[in-house]
């Protein structure tokens, strides 16, 4: 069996203030694996420890304890870094360079011998739609353009693993869709992608697996299918609902949401038949009856609100 692309076993990170001795636990016993070829989302509210985990993964900071590996190597090992493309949360750059020069700089650092580096850079700039601005100094770029450039530098050298911290941050809806399509294309090429994002609807569309952390603790990890198959309720939409009938169906544990021209009723699958018959008998016109599928956002908010972290 191939070594997983990323391994985290019991990773802890405690930040200690230099003076005063105050300790802040950023990560507590974080364990997960990301298999090769998988697109994995790393989710959590602000301050959950996502960027800290990614920094450990890249070898920028050291874990206080626990074991972490990238392609079987210690984080920060050049053999691992040769296979990684990384986009930091706030991609910083040399403002006096233009996009072409910055990518040349990063390509030289990557140490890869390319037959035609100029063509490779030109292709990448077309891919992220910066080809028309390649001569402009990066200091004059908008937030979205900088983010695109950050993605281009992460893709340099055809990495096997992409670690993307908020890849769609700062992008407009069209830009977000382009990044989404790009990630899907990379997924089709068999790349491993580990990304963090706050835009859960996008994560739902592109990721195979989700890891949720909160306040430095693991809350949940599972496939997208597992995450979305949580809801065991059905939604019944009717044209109207008499007051007396509302009281009765609420006794079945149903929830009612009135809208201007219809009423939404949610109830557990076990009660769907009884409820539907009750509504027909009560003179309501049942417009639709559909199994409810919770969105990733619902699951995420529920898990975080439940206080998965102690």
């Amino acid at each position, binding site marked *: 069996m191939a070594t997983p692309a990323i391994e985290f076993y019991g990773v802890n990170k405690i930040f200690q203030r230099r003076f005063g001795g105050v300790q802040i636990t950023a990560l507590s016993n974080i364990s997960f694996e990301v298999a090769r070829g998988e697109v994995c989302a790393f989710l959590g509210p602000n301050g959950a420890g996502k960027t800290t985990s990614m920094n450990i993964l*890249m070898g920028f900071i050291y874990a206080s304890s626990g074991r972490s590996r990238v392609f079987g190597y210690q984080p920060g090992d050049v053999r691992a*870094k040769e296979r990684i493309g990384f986009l930091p949360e706030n991609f910083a*750059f040399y403002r006096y360079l233009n996009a072409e020069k910055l990518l040349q700089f990063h390509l030289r*650092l990557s140490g890869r011998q390319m037959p035609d580096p100029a063509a490779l850079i030109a292709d990448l700039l077309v891919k992220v739609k910066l080809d028309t601005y390649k001569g402009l100094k990066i200091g004059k770029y908008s937030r979205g353009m900088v983010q695109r450039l950050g993605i281009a530098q992460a893709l340099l050298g055809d990495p096997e693993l992409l670690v993307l911290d908020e890849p769609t941050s700062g992008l407009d809806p069209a830009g977000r869709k382009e990044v989404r399509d790009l990630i899907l294309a990379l997924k089709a090429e068999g790349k491993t992608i580990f990304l963090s994002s706050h835009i859960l609807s996008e994560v739902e569309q592109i990721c195979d697996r989700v890891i949720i952390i909160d306040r430095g603790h693991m809350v949940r990890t599972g496939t997208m299918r597992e995450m979305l198959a949580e809801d065991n309720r059905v939604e019944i939409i009717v044209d109207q609902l008499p007051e007396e009938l509302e009281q009765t169906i609420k006794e079945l544990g149903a929830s009612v949401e009135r809208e201007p021209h219809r009423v939404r009723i949610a109830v557990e699958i076990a009660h769907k038949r009884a409820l539907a018959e009750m509504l027909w008998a009560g003179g309501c016109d049942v417009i639709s009856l559909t199994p409810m599928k919770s969105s990733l956002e619902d699951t995420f908010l529920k898990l975080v609100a439940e206080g998965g972290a102690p």
Partner: protein
Amino acid sequence: MKVGVTAIRTIALSTFGSFLRNKVILLFCSLFVCIVLLMISPLLTFKSMTNAANAHQMQGFILNEVAELMAMVSGFGSLLAAWAAADSVAAEMKSGTILAVMARPLRRWEFLAGKYLGVLLLMAVYVVAMLGLTFLLAWLGGQSYHTSLWTLLVYPLVRYSIWAAISMLLVTVLHPILVMGIIVIFMTLSEVFASTSSHIPPWLRTPVHVILPLTNLVSEERFLVITKASLKPFPWTNHLTALAYGLDYALACFLLAVFVFQRRSLARD
């Protein structure tokens, strides 16, 4: 272990390029040029006032002025080396550009080596430029240098490499402004120690010898007398040991900087 020579060279050239756009360094250099021009002005006055009757007296004024200018060039070079080294690392950490750079297959020591070489490249340009100034001053002083060119290039460069290495070591743990404060204190102590060394008890002299960079040892002033602008007899073994001392001190500081940098966090906590 495969050393990323290309990566080190890339970092060094990029660092050197960033110095040429660094506003603080450009401001320092502009101020320095202004001061040099101001100091050359009285020199030219003395020169123009020189006649057969006061030639000896005027020559004394001129050579004194030249000596002061050369001391200033040396002091400024040391400060420039220290600031460039501190800023080159601190600016990358502060702006966060270090993250994208260190995500590349690059070891931490290679990054630091690239930065250090970038500083030395800047100082090499400075030394060459100052060599031109030195010859100009000597000509104004009515002297000509009878010395090997290499000594005027290598000695200052080794001296600056010491200050750059100390600064790089300090900036791995301290703010660059604080680093400059410590560097100025070190420079002052080093000067004081050089002139009062014989009065210091032996038990204190040895540790001070080890800790303080004795840059007077790697100063061309040891064998170059400005009032004569000629080379005093100086055996090659003395050159060798003096330069070896400077390089050894710089290397020790650089290795300590690598040791500390290897363990520190690159991301802002």
